[in-house]
């Protein structure tokens, strides 16, 4: 029974095992139930997403590993929607055998909602000779775990007049391999003279830096005090604040403030009739030219062009 406690607890166990192995891209169907097991499932899904996100920003900053974008799953699908080819990674990701996937309908790998989305999409793209697009789909593994992915979808035709096919692939953002061992490793490893961070952040430092982050988020429209004063107010020093913020959030305090102000400004420009001057002041910019310049730098267009 898919909604029985036993069944759902088994799924939770399976997902925890995946997490223990470092796989944070699964999720579970929470169902319509409003009970304790459903609560656990909802919490587990959200914790999993938060861990995945923190690996991206914390795990990569100052890392000696090269971040990589790898093809995780790849399908070639014919005009009838049947799978013609999958890569080996797809089989292990979906916990299915190659023979089970090849020759079966692609929709079988998706959740019900994604099946509807996909069938609509498939109809619209199969007649196109060449096209590239993206869409969010949720895959289900044979163990019942869900994998939500942004998929790249390309249609292509061969030299002959054979019908078009679809290439669907998903990307995994990963920390990648460490430096190689042996002679190549020595050649690639940073030398003694290269800078190694000397500051060690304690849990207390990290807590204070997170407080600064929250303070910025909740006071975007106020002017940021001088970093030295802000650091002292929070019980730390300017150097630790600057260094720690970059380590934790991958950007400087000032750039973060501007970025968050611009996010709000963009929404206000799009969905309110307030003047650009009012918006600039509302999100904390004192000077309009500075606001326009920062906006164009981030979004590629001036604020006024977004209104047209």
């Amino acid at each position, binding site marked *: 029974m898919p909604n029985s406690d036993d069944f759902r607890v088994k799924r939770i166990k399976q997902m925890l095992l995946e997490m223990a192995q470092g796989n944070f891209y699964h999720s579970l169907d*929470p*169902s*319509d*139930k*409003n*009970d*304790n097991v*459903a*609560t656990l499932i*909802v*919490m587990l*899904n*959200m*914790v999993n*997403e*938060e861990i*995945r*996100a923190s690996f991206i920003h914390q795990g990569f900053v100052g890392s000696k590993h090269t971040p990589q974008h790898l093809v995780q799953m790849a399908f070639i699908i014919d005009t009838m929607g049947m799978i013609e080819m999958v890569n080996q990674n797809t089989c292990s990701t979906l916990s299915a055998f190659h023979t089970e996937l090849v020759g079966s309908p692609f929709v079988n790998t998706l959740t019900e*909602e994604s099946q509807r989305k996909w069938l609509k999409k498939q109809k619209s793209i199969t007649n196109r000779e060449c096209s590239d697009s993206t869409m*969010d789909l949720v895959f289900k593994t044979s163990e019942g775990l869900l994998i*939500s992915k942004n998929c790249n979808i390309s249609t292509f035709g061969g030299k002959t007049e054979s019908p078009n096919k679809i290439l669907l692939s998903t990307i995994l953002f990963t920390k990648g391999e460490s430096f190689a061992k042996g002679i190549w490793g020595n050649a690639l490893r940073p030398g003694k003279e290269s800078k190694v961070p000397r500051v060690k952040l304690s849990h207390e430092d990290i807590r204070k830096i997170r407080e600064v982050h*929250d*303070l910025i*988020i*909740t*006071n*975007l429209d*106020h002017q940021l*005090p001088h970093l030295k004063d802000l650091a002292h*107010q*929070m019980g730390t020093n300017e150097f630790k604040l600057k260094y720690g913020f970059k380590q934790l959030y991958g950007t400087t305090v000032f750039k973060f403030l501007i970025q*968050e102000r611009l*996010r*709000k400004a*963009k*929404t*206000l420009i*799009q*969905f*309110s*009739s*307030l003047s650009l001057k009012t918006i600039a002041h509302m999100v904390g910019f004192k000077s309009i030219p500075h606001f326009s310049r920062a906006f164009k730098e981030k979004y590629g267009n001036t604020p006024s062009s977004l209104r047209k």
Partner: protein
Amino acid sequence: MKKQHENKYAIYLLTDDLLHIIYKKGKSIDLEAAQIIVRDRMVIQEGVSLLVLCDIRELRIVNKPARDFFAIEGSLFIKALAFLIDPPVTDAMSEFYLSTHRTPMPTASFSKKSEAMDFLQKATMLAAVICMLPWNI
């Protein structure tokens, strides 16, 4: 002033200074959905900040990009926000959201509508005082 609006994800009921948003059953909220929800809310409000009562009792999935969007862009023009919840699932969801995202306006969850309304009225007064303090550390 009374207004009503509906989209794929929610129903909006606007009275003088309160916007009541009721999420529909069985909808999974991703970034695209969150953008539609916030866009429609802002269009209804016409640039006026309001108290918002958000009935999330039927919600089950709000993914991280959507949660992040609600916390920043989605906080515009809201004086105070009360979630109407139905424990245990939506209670856990709102608690998780509030502990991982700092929102600039007073926000809390209630399982009784009367308590939520009470909070919104009190929070308006409190927000007015807080707004006067620069960098309220």
